[in-house]
């Protein structure tokens, strides 16, 4: 991973930004009475990092955000679910980003959100040893399409604005 001062600064800012978004989102009351259904706004920053720098940089922001997020929210029970969801999500998004350019980031985001929820369900099935939890997947797929399209569009518009400023 090639690193210079500017890139280090931008990535640090992005890590801080995603951490703040994650913590604020964790404080919001649930919108719908389904556990596991949440906006996933922190992924906006990871997706932007993926398109600005690449998959390794996005992985760095994602993993550090998850670890620090557990520390700051005190919710270590959620670590295994965050990390497995995040790993599947970023793998799916990295592969999709090869074919889909910046004007289709929302599509990549939806795929990543579905991957995230599938990864979490898989982790829950293994940890709880209760395969019936898989019947919850359709609910999470529906929510992933909606929230993924929303966060992806947010990332896409933010990145377009950011490129116009000439900062990047």
């Amino acid at each position, binding site marked *: 991973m090639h690193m210079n001062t500017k890139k280090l600064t931008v990535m640090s800012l992005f890590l801080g930004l995603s951490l703040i978004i994650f913590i604020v989102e964790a404080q919001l009351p649930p919108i719908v009475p389904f556990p596991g259904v949440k906006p996933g706004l922190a992924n906006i920053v990871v997706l932007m990092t993926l398109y600005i720098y690449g998959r390794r940089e996005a992985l760095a922001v994602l993993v550090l955000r998850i670890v620090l997020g557990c520390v700051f929210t005190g919710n270590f029970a959620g670590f295994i679910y965050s990390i497995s969801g995040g790993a599947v999500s970023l793998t799916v998004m990295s592969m999709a980003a090869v074919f889909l350019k910046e004007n289709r980031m929302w599509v990549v985001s939806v795929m990543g959100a579905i991957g995230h929820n599938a990864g979490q369900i898989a982790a829950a099935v293994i940890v*709880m040893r209760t395969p019936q939890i898989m019947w919850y997947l359709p609910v999470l797929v529906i929510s992933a399409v909606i929230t993924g399209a929303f966060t992806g569009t947010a990332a896409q518009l933010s990145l377009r604005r950011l490129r116009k400023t000439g900062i990047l």
Partner: protein
Amino acid sequence: MSEFKKNAAWAAAFAGLIALSALVMLIHKAVNGEAKTAQIALNGQIVRTVKLEANCEPYEFTVDTPWGKNSIRVENGRIGVVWADCPDKLCADRGFIDSADESIVCLPHKLVITVSGSSSLDAVTGG
């Protein structure tokens, strides 16, 4: 293909995925909508099974897990967590469940409540 058409094609594909998911949910609900029991599992082991009958006297009991406590209420063919000493209370917020393979999950206490009927699908899927 124009920019708009490409986005529309993807949107259509995702709408199809939503429809498919909804269909799976509906079919699953239709197949399993029979006489029901609720299983309470701790860390994957079923610790208690209760019948969910439409006109039974409501009752509550508490499950002591090594990680904390959950108060569970059974009433009118449905089951729910009414109180828990876990930090997020997601299990209590979930409310009551009454149909097959709905579940209440309390991650901090490794507690899972599932509802199932005695349908053939359960035998096939080993549920």
